């Protein structure tokens, strides 16, 4: 029984479902719902980013670029061309997947942190293009986005959005956990052990890394599309380098290579600035200090450290 609860595939998953189901009981007004929805969207991005950082050992310093492409893709197709939002989302996602593939394929063949540089470049380019091409994007002022339509009905109201985002987060976590347990996940774990040994035993490391990179970009793009429809407005100020860094911080704070860590990291670091609006001036200092402190004193991140502390023996024996 205990082992069933402790296994991430079942126990953690049950906890996540319970939290998502129980949260509406304490969300007493629309503002709380709004924060919860933002947490959910960030968590979706972070679960994908965690696959990349934790399992492929690569960082993306421009994940907000993929988020932004999804958001603007949905916004432009649905607002300027009257596409159904679901079709717009699908096309934007496919385009982002292709882009990630085109970037990842040559660059992930190289050992080292070239992906960090390339994604950084892509992120900055996306945000500058979004601010400049005002005929398409509305420029720095941004553009309105029509509401999301699903099965003939319009998705509106905080409660409905909460359900959709919560459902998607569950799906994302489920996909991520399955990927980690799949041959690809095992291959990636072998790579982080010893890349040379893994290659010798026949693992095509570049192919697996590219797959994970594409998946992480797709999660970000879907979250971006939904964010655009949910907030009804999108501006390039959402797409700064700092936001990409915030996403990386969420992942490393929650715990690298821990899917629930990514969710917890997104939840804590999305809620914290909302709670600390009084200390707005200190937001950057706090964010920087959290990043440095986590990496120096708790390099495994919050969730894995808590797990080690709570059920020491299990982790120490090395059974994940």
């Amino acid at each position, binding site marked *: 029984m205990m082992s069933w609860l402790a296994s991430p595939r079942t126990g953690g998953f049950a906890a996540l479902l319970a939290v998502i189901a129980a949260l509406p009981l304490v969300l007493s007004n629309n503002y709380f719902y709004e924060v919860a929805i933002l947490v959910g969207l960030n968590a979706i991005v972070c679960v994908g980013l965690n696959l990349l950082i934790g399992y492929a050992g690569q960082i993306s310093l421009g994940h907000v670029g993929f988020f932004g492409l999804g958001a603007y893709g949905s916004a432009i197709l649905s607002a300027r061309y009257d596409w159904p939002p679901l079709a717009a989302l699908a096309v934007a996602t496919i385009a982002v997947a292709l882009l990630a593939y085109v970037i990842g394929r040559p660059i992930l063949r190289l050992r080292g942190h070239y992906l960090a*540089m390339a994604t950084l470049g892509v992120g900055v380019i996306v945000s*500058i293009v979004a601010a400049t091409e005002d005929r398409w994007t509305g420029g720095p002022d941004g553009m309105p986005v029509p509401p999301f339509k699903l099965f003939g009905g319009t998705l509106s109201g905080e409660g409905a959005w909460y359900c959709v985002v919560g459902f998607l987060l569950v799906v994302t976590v489920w996909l991520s956990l399955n990927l980690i347990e799949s041959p690809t996940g095992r291959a990636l774990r072998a790579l982080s052990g010893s890349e040379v040994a893994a290659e010798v035993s026949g693992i095509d*490391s*570049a192919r697996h890394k590219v797959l994970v990179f594409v998946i992480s970009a797709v999660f970000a793009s879907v979250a971006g599309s939904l964010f655009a429809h949910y907030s009804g407005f999108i501006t390039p100020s959402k797409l700064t380098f700092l936001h990409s860094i915030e996403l990386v*911080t969420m992942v*490393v704070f929650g715990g690298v290579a821990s899917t629930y860590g990514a969710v917890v990291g997104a939840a804590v670091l999305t809620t914290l600035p909302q709670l600390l609006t009084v200390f707005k*001036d200190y*937001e950057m200092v706090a964010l*920087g200090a959290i990043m440095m402190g986590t990496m120096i004193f708790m390099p495994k991140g919050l969730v894995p450290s808590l797990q080690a502390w709570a059920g020491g023996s299990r982790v120490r024996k090395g059974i994940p």
Partner: protein
Amino acid sequence: MSAQLAQYLLSGVTIGAIYALVALGFSIIFNASHVINFAQGEFVMIGGMTTVSLTGTGLPVPAAMAAAVLVAALVGLALEKFAVEPARGAPVVTLIIITIGASILLRGLATLVWDKKLHTIAPFSGSTPIEIAGAALLPQSLWVLGVTLAIVLALSWFFGHTLLGKAMVATSNQRVAAQLVGINVRRVLLISFGLSGALGAVAGILITPITLTAWDVGIMLGLKGFAAAVLGGLGSGPGAVLGGLVLGIAETLSAGYLSSAYKDVIAFVLMLAVLFFKPTGILGSRAAERV
């Protein structure tokens, strides 16, 4: 050569020299540790802002500049000592995230210590332009080019002819071997952060009379200096200088002839192109390991 083209080239070389100084800072730390120090841009900001605030207190300008370089070098040393050193042995990704955290922390501190306004200092030798081939050259540009040249020469002497410099080169080539012959690689790492801090501050002081300074100038200057370092070949000194100059000229030419709105994109497009077609950069010596 048309006067317009000459003008673009002159401004391109000037800003390119600044990118080169920032890129050199990236390369020095990368060589010592394989860490990409994303706080490099903040050294530039600290150099400019410290000079502004010290001259504001009535300190003579040269003394304020020297103090600013010292402050940035100390921040670099502190960054290594209190953030990178404690995480010794951690994966490079961890160290990179630490430097990103440091850059945000420093930027946040700058808004608290100073403010969020734009600041400037007077050009070192007035602002009467000198005419060259029909183009106007600001005296400050000569300062930028002269000081950059002097620094590049001093660095090549340092790395080629001093014991410490040679120790740093040895560490970057083969860390374990360097340790075996008795080089204190931890001290090399510390010194490389201090040196990079000083270089960044010099760039920040030189450029302030031309482009102004503020708490957030480090973001773009840092990212572009990084692009310049990748362009020339991360870890290569001559590559950093060449990458900076190529980037500066490409930027002003494209702003002049193509679109000024996309001036800031050039750096990143060039960087992506280099990563796709020649990931070692123009002058990168070490072949990127193909997996």
